[in-house]
């Protein structure tokens, strides 16, 4: 009966528009980005100044047109996914790891760790993020590694707060208490009982933040703090294309669509993953 239930629920999930759409978008985007080296061996760098700003859908050589330097927009969108996804994913993974550990410790052991975390979070909340980014990058210099590092520094607090909140709520739940009553030690309680139960909200925040961070890279480029413009990235293309919106819309619209599809795909998958992580299927979606 349990198996039947699982199958029927899986089927229900599969039937859902979201999962199909999410999978299609994420997997498609992921594969394209992964194999961009094979698809576009030039890395979207070949320039043809004479063929600049070719409109899309007119030639097979440049199905999505070319940019102001005559580079192929399609190639750059696909190749650009590497940087964007690297920035988005690595920064989030870093922040999740740091934030989760701190949040677990602060929420479970309370005490000084918690006080420090909370004050730290207050301070970071009160610092306007973009301004901090500008200062931070002005001091450290720009670069993908620094942008990722900065995002980790700026965002781990979000996870720490979230995890701490969930841990506080879980701490006094009866199943934690009963694990303790059995004689389960703190470390084991944290990692086998608390962590799996806070994963759901973390996944949701993560998928939202991947999107957020891809866009942040774009905003930094807008402010002149982005990464090497030779390395295509969605954010950079979007920001650089803004001067051409009236004369060559395709330069920024296609990277914009790429971001949109990825964000959509990731979030739909994230929602689904959260349900999957929750065998009870109780959490409201």
């Amino acid at each position, binding site marked *: 009966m349990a198996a039947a239930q699982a199958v029927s629920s899986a089927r229900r999930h599969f039937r859902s528009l979201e999962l199909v759409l999410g999978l299609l978008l994420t997997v498609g985007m992921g594969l394209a980005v992964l194999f961009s080296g094979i698809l576009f061996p030039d890395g979207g760098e070949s320039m043809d100044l004479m063929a600049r700003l070719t409109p899309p859908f007119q030639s097979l050589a440049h199905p999505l047109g070319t940019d102001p330097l005559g580079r192929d927009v399609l190639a750059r969108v696909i190749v650009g996914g590497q940087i964007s996804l690297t920035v988005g994913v690595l920064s989030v993974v870093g922040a999740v790891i740091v934030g989760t550990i701190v949040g677990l410790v602060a929420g479970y052991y309370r005490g000084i760790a918690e006080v420090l975390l909370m004050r730290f979070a207050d301070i970071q909340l*009160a610092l306007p993020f973009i*301004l901090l980014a500008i*200062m931070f990058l002005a001091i450290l210099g720009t670069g993908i590694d620094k942008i990722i590092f900065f995002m980790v520094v700026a965002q781990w607090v979000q996870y720490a707060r979230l995890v701490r909140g969930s841990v506080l709520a879980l701490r006094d739940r009866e199943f934690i208490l009963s694990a303790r009553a059995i004689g389960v030690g703190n470390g084991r309680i944290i990692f086998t009982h608390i962590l799996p139960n806070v994963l759901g909200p973390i996944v949701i925040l993560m998928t939202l933040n991947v999107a957020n961070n891809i*866009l942040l890279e774009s905003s930094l480029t807008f402010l002149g703090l982005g990464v090497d413009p030779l390395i295509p990235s969605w954010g950079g293309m979007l920001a650089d294309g803004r001067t051409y919106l009236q004369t060559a819309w395709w330069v920024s619209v296609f990277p914009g669509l790429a971001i949109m599809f990825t964000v*959509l795909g990731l*979030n739909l998958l994230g929602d689904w993953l959260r349900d999957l992580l929750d065998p009870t299927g109780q959490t409201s979606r």
Partner: protein
Amino acid sequence: MQDQAPRQRGRFSESKKDHPMAGFILKRLLQAVFVVLAVTLIVSFAIRLSGDPAIMLMGGGNVTEQDLQNIRQALGLERPFFVQYLDFLEGMITGDFGKSFMGGTPVSMLIANALPATLLLAFTSLIVSIVLSVPLGVYAAVNRGRWPDQMIRILSLVGLSFPNFWLAIMMVLLFSIVLGLLPPSGMEGPESFVMPALTMAIILTATNVRLVRTSMLETLSQQYIMVARSKGLRDRVVLYKHALRNSAIPLVTYIGLQFGGLIGGIVIIERVFNWPGMGTLAFDAISNRDYPVLQGTITVLALFIVLINLLVDIAYGLIDPRIRTE
């Protein structure tokens, strides 16, 4: 002195018993002071690491070390960092944030001009976002799993997929240039609020809709909602009186947290819409390494963020009597 202290403490705890809120607010105020101090310290220190305003002031032209030295002296920058910082703190207490390095305008005057613009924008967009996200979120929750729900959720994700500056430029193209309805930038009449506020509101709404939806779903499964229905109340009353007020707590918390992010986003929105607010002020101050202006603006912004969060905590009490009376 010594025998006075305990009595004072006694009196304090006495009054505390009468007003449980007072102690809480006092504690939060102390925390707020700490946060603002820490923020100013970090910012003052970091900005000094990131470049010398003397060179910025000289415009990078024909300068000698002596010229730079002169300027630093005139601006008081040759003193040790802590002396400068304490000086800044001292001024801050009297509301004097010093003068801009760029042209010597008093920082307090710049802030007085810019703060209302930013707050107006921030609150307008917050309100617009709430007005948009609450009915949409409720509607999605009520129709959970059906197509209106899916549409609202997917649309909200689309709203999250565009950087704010891009959205802003697109709006300008549409409303100012193609349709010629609204001024592309500046803060003049009420019509100049529409686009900046809408741009920010769209981005806020995208997240808020999901939040309203989730917390509504949670509330709607509560027994008291069924009880309210069993009384024969209209759906609207059940949803917007009984359910929404209970769902408001996570929403209000989130809005408090959002405020910091809102200010961050405002830097870019203000730039695109040439909005004469704190974001512009702070951004220019960083570009110019205009320490007094940056310190002043960040302090005031931090103060506001902290204040908003304090208000959020107080709002809890208004929304939820369990917090008020305990």
